[in-house]
């Protein structure tokens, strides 16, 4: 996995609550046997008409949103299916962080393993971020994982939580499977006491 670095980006604001993983990537796109190209189908049913043309109202179809790495979403993002295709689609599109007040457990785990940072903020900060985007759709944030901060345009810094292990893995690009593979002796010992 690539190391997670500090960066600045403008925000894509999607105020919908309870965005489930079926909306992030509908099931008909899960027939793939690799992880490539899923970004094209991100939010497919909200993004495209039946004829495949983009819906002009949907935020990702506004030309100026292209290249933005931060998604600001409503409460309880990523509920439902365990499909890892959801973070694959989000990162495939170019997102590196999603900001919400809460995330579904499986989605959160899947995101952390794919270099997509789920950032939890409190309700006030969440509402403030949406108002900033409403006032100025080009609002940008600086994300610094080392310091665990978001920096708002006025310079105010907001702390966000992340467990130490996930942070270390993201910052250093650590492969979690490699970490557990190195515990082979302990696993073998556990298996022999079990048998």
């Amino acid at each position, binding site marked *: 996995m690539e190391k997670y670095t500090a960066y600045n980006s403008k925000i894509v604001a999607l*105020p*919908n*609550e*309870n965005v*489930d993983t*079926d*909306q992030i990537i*509908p*099931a*008909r796109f*899960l*027939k*793939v*046997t*690799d*992880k490539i190209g899923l970004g094209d189908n991100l939010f497919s*049913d909200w993004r495209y008409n*039946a004829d495949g043309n983009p819906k002009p109202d949907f935020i990702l179809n506004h030309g100026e949103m292209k290249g933005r790495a931060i998604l600001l979403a*409503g*409460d*309880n993002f990523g*509920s*439902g*299916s*365990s*499909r*890892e295709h959801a*973070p694959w689609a989000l990162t495939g599109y170019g997102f590196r962080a999603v900001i919400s007040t*809460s*995330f*579904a*457990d*499986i989605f959160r*785990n*899947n995101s952390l*393993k*794919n270099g997509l940072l789920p950032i939890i903020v409190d309700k006030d900060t969440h509402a403030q971020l949406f108002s900033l985007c409403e006032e100025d759709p080009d609002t940008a944030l600086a994300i610094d994982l080392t310091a665990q901060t978001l920096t708002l345009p006025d310079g105010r810094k907001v702390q966000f939580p992340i*467990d*130490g*292990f996930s942070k270390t893995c993201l910052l250093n690009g650590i492969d*979690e*499977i490699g*970490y*557990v*593979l190195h*515990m*082979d002796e*302990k*696993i073998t010992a*556990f*298996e022999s006491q*079990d048998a």
Partner: protein
Amino acid sequence: MPQTLFEKIWNAHVVAQDADSPAVLYIDLHLVHEVTSPQAFEGLRNRGIKVRRPDRTYATMDHGIPTHSRDIPIADALAAKQIAQLETNTAEFGITLYGLRQNAEKQGIVHVIGPELGLTRPGMTIVCGDSHTSTHGAFGALSFGIGTSEVEMVLSTQCLLQRKPGTAQVRVDGKLQKGVVAKDIILAIIAKYGIGAGTGYVFEYTGEAIRILNMEERMTVCNMSIEGGARAGMIAPDDTTFEYIAGREFAPKGANWDKAVSEWRKLPTDDGATFDATFSLDADTLEPMITYGTNPGMGTGVTGRVPDPAQLADLSQRNALIKALGYMNLKPNQPLLGQAIDVVFIGSCTNSRISDLRDAAAVMKGRRVNPNVRVMIVPGSAQVKREAEAEGLDRVFSEAGAEWREAGCSMCIAMNGDQLQPGQYAISTSNRNFEGRQGKGGRTFLASPLTAAASAITGVVTDVRTMLR
């Protein structure tokens, strides 16, 4: 110190626990299906490693397979490729497959066949790349859904990195009235507490209304724990559990059985153990439930009305309800009874077991499906299908005008061609009413097999209690 069921299983499976790191948790049983595993097997190939415990890993195909005749080749090239990939991967890595060609008599929805084969047993840790793995918690197992990276980790190491979740007791007291079933319990819990209430928790369902349920009903309840936000839902094992498991293919036999049961009897939560949160529901006053919106928490009693967004104080909740009712094309305050439907789907890992089919058949026997409604009955496994046919349920359904299909996930996830057309309304015994879940533009009402069967006959949302004989 008194412990909960969850804590006993968790503590017995921690292989290592470094400070400030998640636990390395040993996994007893890993179930695999075609959709969330190809990239994980590819990961093993790239590392040049084998599956650590193929003897603890079992695979089936369910999500993408057609449910029409098995003699017809799979028309969808991508689905066919994914299915072929699972055949290749399981053969290469030495994993037992219950597929369309291999051991086909035991193929089925992964959460139906695990219990059916006796693979699912009390005290186990069980994972699968599917969020409805919570189903197996009905046996007093710790069982939850994982992503594909985690599938790769379990294939590689038979372990998972896990932070210890919190525990929540979900207490259901009282007694269900006639026509009200397990599906209504779980829909009511989610309607009462919302789809995010269980985030960060493992649910343990307790109380007399849970204790009296049979294993298939308990599976229905635990299945939808994830719809309440909880990755896992559990029910303490008891004689009902042991009777279900006894004699199944992978169940311990002879002296091993007695030893296993005596261990399983130690699993229930100790008196005095505490939970981090408590939720509760009164079964006495429960009526058949139905959803009206686009998440499983948007539900009400079947005699209820669609809520009015104007009554909601919270702006974001109001907007969410307006959006949901717009998608569903329902009006605030309209009654749900009498709402016309186009499709009835009876199936899925929530409600496709033999008792679900018996419930549906009891309502449909001697009656005809409304001519405006397409009714699909999809058994959860090849074994359920055989059992239903031996009892003559297939004839009840066919004579009523319903379609009797092959086993699979079918229209619950609509990956296999079984899907709603845009704008169609369905009553579905599945678990998710998300936008487009059963087909792009399709509109889903979640309900029990009884409510679904009653509505199939009338062609409108119906209170099954008016039709019970």
